[in-house]
């Protein structure tokens, strides 16, 4: 077994509320998985458990063969393996765009500054925003900020990229530029887990679509199968709503 992510029997509670119910979930290396489902279905909680922004209550999580346990070293190692892109970008507003990408490398990987800045420039170029490197996040549009956030995560050389609704906070005209960057990333063979409502993106790049509802994985299927002949009645209902709205 050479899975990038392996989740077994995952349970997560918020107080009394059972947010994730006995989830089994795995992602092979170089696989692109899209997780969809209605809000409150637990899809964000699931990927936030993978890099432990949320603590899970029971179950096993393994990233690149590193088992998440109480050992802090393993937690740090998992966070280095898994890059994350957030719905609200979460760029550091007091740092320039270049520094947003360079400083985290210096702080968490102890990369020498010169090398960190060179790599930051390289990845900013890959997301087509190198010309804005000296600006501050507050001076950029949402789409530009999200591309910087992707570059920042890539600078850490992650093996897996986790996307938590990366286009949900964007104005419609900016969604395309972010999705384009993600498509390119997928074509380059990055292992990706994407929580999104962008079904076009799922159709275009996903190897697998995972449908979640009420804290459970309801259906896992290839995109063609999921969009044309979803087996589960609940996923059918979800898809029909997407078409009508």
């Amino acid at each position, binding site marked *: 077994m050479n899975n990038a992510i392996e989740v077994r029997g995952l349970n997560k509670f918020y107080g009394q509320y059972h947010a994730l119910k006995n989830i089994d979930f795995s992602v092979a290396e170089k696989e692109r998985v899209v997780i969809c489902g209605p809000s409150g279905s637990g899809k964000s909680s699931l990927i936030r458990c993978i890099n432990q922004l949320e603590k899970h209550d029971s179950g096993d999580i393994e990233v690149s063969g590193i088992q998440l346990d109480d050992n802090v070293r393993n937690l740090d190692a998992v*966070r280095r393996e898994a890059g994350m892109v957030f719905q609200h970008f979460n760029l*550091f507003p*007091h740092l320039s765009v270049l520094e947003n990408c360079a400083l985290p490398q210096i*702080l968490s*990987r102890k990369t020498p500054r010169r090398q960190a800045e060179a790599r930051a420039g390289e990845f900013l170029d890959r997301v087509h925003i190198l010309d804005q490197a000296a600006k501050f996040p507050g*001076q950029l549009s949402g789409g530009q900020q999200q591309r910087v956030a992707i570059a920042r995560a890539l600078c850490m050389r992650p093996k897996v990229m986790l996307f938590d609704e990366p286009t949900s906070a964007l104005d419609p005209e900016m969604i395309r530029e972010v999705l384009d960057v993600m498509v390119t990333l997928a074509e380059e063979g990055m292992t990706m887990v994407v929580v999104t409502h962008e079904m076009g993106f799922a159709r275009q790049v996903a190897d697998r679509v995972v449908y979640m509802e009420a804290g459970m994985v309801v259906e896992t299927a290839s995109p063609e199968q999921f969009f044309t002949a979803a087996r589960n009645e609940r996923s059918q209902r979800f898809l029909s709503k997407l078409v009508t709205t």
Partner: protein
Amino acid sequence: MANAATPPSGEKPVARLVKLLFGDPLAAALTLLSAVLILALLPLVQWAFVDAHWTVAAPEDCRAGGACWAFIGAKLRLILFGLYPPQSQWRALTVIALLLTLVLLSLSPRVWGARLLGIWTLGLVVMLLLMRGGLFGLNYVPTSKWGGLPVTLLLAVISLGLAFPFAVLLALGRRSKLPVARGVSVFLIEVVRGLPLVGLLFVAAILLPLFLPPDWTIDKLGRTVAALTIFAAAYLAEVIRGGLQGLPSGQIEASQALGIPYWRMVWHIILPQAVQKVIPPLTNTAIVMVKNTSLVLIVGVFDMLSAARSAATDPMWPAPSKEAYLFVALIYFVICFAIARYSRHLEMGVKARNRT
């Protein structure tokens, strides 16, 4: 109401002025009030400038009325340096110059960082050694002989500088999930804020030595610094906590997801943003602390205000305390006003950064 309809350009200048000054009851009242104030200030101007004695041959020449600025000239060394030995006062002057240089070097936020912090630490150690002497052939001056402006400046800078890291710990502790850390922080902050600074200074300077074993002698100036530090830390902690509260949780999540270790996150990500949000109240605390240093005179530390007081008691001069206090007030004002202007400048920088 009739003349409100006519366009202002059609009015004569005099009529416009009259309307501006007495156009409505509020304007008229303010005009009258200003006139009374100006008239009241005239004697002060007369005293401070017209009748003033700038240079006198002998102290008695000042008896004629009017401000005796010549007194400031004659007592300048005493006011600025207190009882510091006159032949060594170049050292005290050098300390002031060094401090000003460091301040000027630190103005641009671009140079802020661990290196600057190191330079400041080193600089302050050099300043303290220079004041103290006993090395490199400099004669030893005990802290009881230190005084004047260097003491005021060093007290303010050192107590604020030492207070800052404690304040950060207290602020983080107060927001901590650990009940013990939170409890201890809340307790310390509230106890210190509930005490008057004068009381803290008394405890540190006078009561503390009574409880310590007699062979434990901690320098009085050192104990004063400790009291000021504790006081400043409690207030700064609350200011910094305000900044931490305004910080979106996404900043911490992003740092964690990037694998940035906790204390590095605090130093590089959290604190810069928290401090940026609370520049005005931070400035307020800094200014208050600069002026609070003058309270040390009640425990017998010879700061600038104490020095001015003792200069004013010279029986040779006819009652020069007004001039002495005004002069000291001017120095305090220049320091505090400079801090205020600088903080405005920093705020504008933060604003410019967030503008598209």
